[in-house]
């Protein structure tokens, strides 16, 4: 009991710092972020991408039983869907604090621009959110809806690939600009989604001290192996991205990405987030242990988080056009304390929602 309140207390601190940041942003201005006219997208946005792609990844996992008819995954369905909701809420928090005028989002409805991938993204996420709530309600009341599950799967595919479109059409910024990302995003999303599910389940198991069924253990071993394979695939893709864009490309626009290779987020992403989890999960001895799974999934999440930042910065640190006047080739970035608070806020909201669910909504329960 006390542990729960302590945990809630910790989460509240995160939320309070987040609210304080919100207050600062709307009184002082966005200058509390590492603002320059060059670094227009930074940590709050990359955290949003992290959360939203993780949520999409979870959606893929949750679609295994309903879309692909793999019955044995039904036992984790409830937790997965709930986790999707929690993670999505975390992404909304980060997005809201990224947007300059969040109240104007009503114009997405009143003044739609279907030519804009960002417009589609907003619409998709809105629908996604409604569907998730409905799906969870159905599961909570004891049933899996095949229709809802299928829709969620489709939307997850569209939302994660739309992000690829969104960045793919920025002809001005080659480092962001590759249709390649329409594939890269769902895949990395799946990796982080699986990692999140494994991490949360394993931590839950550890803390609750409950005996897990052999069935479930086998399921998660399988899961972990899959996660390892996906992490490995991502690592290979990542390597090609580095070689094609960062090393062999002659386009000056890749300067920003070239700069990011060798940066801290890049190396966290590659070594901690991809290489190590792959190795860990491919070693059966480690894979079967709970701690092994926790470490690998945690590292993968950390790596994916760093990766989203690396990715966003690859697009912006090299000033474009007249913004380059009087500025160095590459503009350095260091997140401000308030940007870190935004991330903390996102995590706190996600964890709050998840923890409340874990406590009151019986996430272990399998639907019928």
């Amino acid at each position, binding site marked *: 009991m006390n542990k729960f309140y302590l945990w809630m207390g910790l989460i509240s601190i995160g939320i309070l710092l987040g609210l304080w940041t919100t207050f600062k942003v709307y009184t002082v201005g966005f200058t509390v972020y590492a603002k320059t006219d060059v670094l227009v997208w930074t940590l709050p946005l990359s955290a949003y991408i992290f959360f939203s792609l993780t949520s999409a990844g979870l959606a893929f996992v949750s679609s295994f039983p309903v879309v692909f008819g793999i019955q044995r995954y039904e036992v984790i369905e409830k937790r997965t869907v709930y986790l999707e909701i929690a993670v999505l809420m975390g992404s909304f928090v980060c997005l809201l604090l990224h947007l300059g005028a969040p109240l104007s989002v009503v114009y997405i409805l009143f003044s739609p621009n279907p030519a804009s991938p960002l417009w589609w993204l907003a619409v998709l996420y809105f629908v996604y959110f409604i569907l998730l709530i409905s799906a969870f309600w159905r599961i909570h009341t004891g049933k899996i809806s095949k229709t809802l599950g299928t829709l969620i799967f489709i939307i997850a595919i569209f939302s994660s690939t739309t992000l690829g479109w969104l960045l793919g059409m920025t002809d001005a910024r080659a480092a962001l600009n590759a249709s390649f990302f329409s594939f890269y995003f769902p895949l990395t999303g799946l990796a982080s989604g699986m990692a999140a599910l494994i991490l949360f389940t394993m931590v839950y198991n550890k803390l609750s001290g409950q005996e897990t069924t052999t069935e479930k253990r086998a399921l998660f071993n399988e899961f972990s192996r899959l996660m390892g394979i996906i992490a490995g695939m991502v690592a290979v893709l990542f390597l090609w991205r580095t070689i094609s864009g960062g090393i062999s490309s002659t386009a000056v626009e890749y300067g920003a990405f070239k700069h990011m290779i060798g*940066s*801290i*987020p890049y190396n966290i992403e590659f070594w901690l987030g991809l290489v190590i989890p792959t190795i860990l999960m491919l070693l059966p001895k480690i894979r079967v242990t709970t701690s092994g799974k926790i470490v690998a999934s945690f590292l993968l999440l950390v790596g994916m988080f760093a990766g989203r930042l690396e990715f966003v910065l690859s697009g912006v640190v090299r000033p474009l056009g007249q913004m*380059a006047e009087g500025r*160095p*080739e590459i503009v*350095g970035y260091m997140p401000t304390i308030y940007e870190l608070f935004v991330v903390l806020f996102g995590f706190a909201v996600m964890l709050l929602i998840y923890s409340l669910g874990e406590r009151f909504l019986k996430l272990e329960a399998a639907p019928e």
Partner: protein
Amino acid sequence: MDREKKVRKSLMKDFLGNINLSRRSFIKASATTGAAVAAGSGLSFELKALAASTGAKGNGMGQWLPATCQGCTSWCSKQVYIVDGRAVKVRGNPHSKVNMGAGCPRSHLALQQLYDPDRIKSPMKRTNPKKGREEDPKFVPVSWDEALDTIADKIMELRNNNETHKYMLMRGRYSYMRDVLYDRMTKIIGSPNNISHSSLCAEAEKFGPFYTEGIWSYRQYDVLNAHYVLLWGADPLAANRQVSYYSKVWGDVVDKATIAIVEPRLSASAGKADEWLPIKPGQDGALAVAISHVILAEGLWYKPFVGDFKDGNNLFIAGQTVDEEAFEELHTNGIVKYWNLELKDKTPDWASEITGIPAEQIYRVAKGFGLAAPHAISWLGGGPCMQVRGGYTAMAVHALNGIVGAVDNVGGTLKANKEYTSKFPKPDDFMDDIAKKGKKHEKIDQRGRLHIPCLKSGKPGGAVITNNSADGILNDDPYEIKVAIGYMNNFSFSAPQPERWERALSKIPFLVHITTNASEFSWFADIVLPDTHHMFEKWGYVKAIGNGYRHVTLMQPIVKNVWDYKIDETEIPWLLAEKLAERGFDNLLRHYKTYKDPETGKEPSSDKEFALYSLKYATQQLWDPAKYKGGDKFDGWEAFRKTGVWNSDPYPFRKRWGKMKTKTGKFEFYSETLKAALEKHAENHGVGVDEVMKATHYLARGERAFIPHYEEPYILGDEKEYPFIHVDHKSRLNREGRSANCTWYYDFKDLDPGDETWDDVAKINPLDAKKFGIQSGDRIKISSPTGSLFCTAKLWEGVRPGSVAKCYGQGHWAYGRLASKKFGKEARGGSSNDLIPAQYEALSGSSAYYAVTRIKIEKV
């Protein structure tokens, strides 16, 4: 995170993208244009209306009213957009034939000056009796009455004690209403000490043309008809007059003329020149005589002006003396003497070593310049001559115009056109015995002493030597100053080695400052009076030349006065005159009452009336059709006031050939005029001319003192300790050092090539920087033998190795919240004057700003 900053090298290439690839897409766009034209040709009338209506009154919310800008000495006629009594925008006055409606970047900053939140709202007085840089004056507001009473009491004290000469008036930026305060008031009170800022400006630049062609003034240049423009330290697109006009036509000048620029720093104008001659600072004279040598040796001088050898053979052969009899001179004097005494050995090879300019380039420029004769302009800026030994350089540079016959010629160098403003009534009848006696004292700047001849217009002691007044005051030599008034000046910032001024001003028992902002000068004042802004709040007029015209442009109050300002040159002296009259001394007030309104004949009865009447009085011949003498014609004052500017008749070319105001009436290479002036000065002191040369730091002896010639520069500081020569330059955003409290100044500071926004940088050649381990962005301390400053290092290829260029304008420690880092305490950036020693081009009295000191740089 990795914060490495790489130097950007290929910005433009990157930005332009691959232009070559895009030809197809462009043609495609043109095709669609054609289609669209066919569909909608009826719509173009809107655009024609658009073109027609600009310049005319639109249906805007405000009104364009005429004004005058004194942000620099171009003195352009402007128009200001007024909405509800508020100044909103500035543009060039299209009625001016000098600036032709063109503006410039600095003019817009006037708005931020006008509405500077740090302007003084009301008179204030000092409550801390101790004076000094470290002493907070503890100013408190007082009424105009109290402030003026105090000043009048102090002046009366001088008069009662028969020591009116201990009164001093210091003038800064002025209009031609200046004589009301500067001359008449000083004289009638009874003091010789009206000290202008002129020698901080460019008196040495006037020295060259005066002692060759007899004009003590700036020139205008007929650039649109020139085939060669050779600029000497002049930066007409940024800092030298007439910025607006030259900006307007430069694109055409580039087409027609070869442009060469002599300047150690890549200036704004150098960016648009064919040849950049990055000379070693101070060596301009060597280049000028070498170019002259080539022109003569190649036989390219302009014979219809200079004349020719009697037998037609060019005897100007390098190293050989020429018989004066062999040459028949026309409109010039002493070309052969010039050759024999100076030019014959001054070959490009000789000059190359001294100037650091390749001999081929010297030869090429000289030949190009000579071939363009007489449409070739040798354009003298302040750089080559505002140096300790700059007087003869000024002559050598200007003499080039004589050699190629560009003087007074089409495509050449011109003097000012005639204008018809009048002087104010003479003060003599109002000067009582005290005044007459007081005025006879020597002036506080010590002008005319042996080492400072100040030979303005041929008269020893005729020119002011502003910066020397500080020493006069400090040493009570010739006597002490007890009461002083300064207006729109800031000598403790704008004069070299300003620390002397800080001490001098602290020493004056009673100091008054008339100013818009609490400046570094006000800091030492007992009373500070809030001044109007010249462009929006003042009655006055100024004259300027350019484009072959002269204009007289009006300053008028055109906005609501936000606070209690008064006009420096008219209202304040009137109010003071009233106060003096109350104290039984009414001579000044009686004198001022003679400035009657020309329209009604009414004498002024208040400060406001006086300000207006005196302006109408001075400009009557321009606007009164009954007194019309030439130029634009108006049907009365109102018409003139609404237009805001009067233009002269066009320039009469070649009218002065053979009738120049020199001793010989000719263009003098051998200056009989200078000879007379120097001999007179020497005679005043009972010495010979050689002693004068020695006392003024010049090396010339004998006849060479009367001809243009090269002198090795006089630069302070040992090369070992101080490895660099300091190069000072001006910003295209400077409003004479008064824009440092404007945000736009900093946001656009990088409009000066090499400079950075929101920073004050010293520009260092990367080769030098490497040697000293300095990188861009390093905070550095620059020191000279007489002072130091802190700023930021900037590596830049546009500066000559061995020299460091820094822009004047920042480094204020007062003036306002933005100008200073901490008001009254800490400077923002560094002021070049803190490095420059108080040295003089003594023949003209000019302060030396260029090639005058060596400096060293330390990282801090």
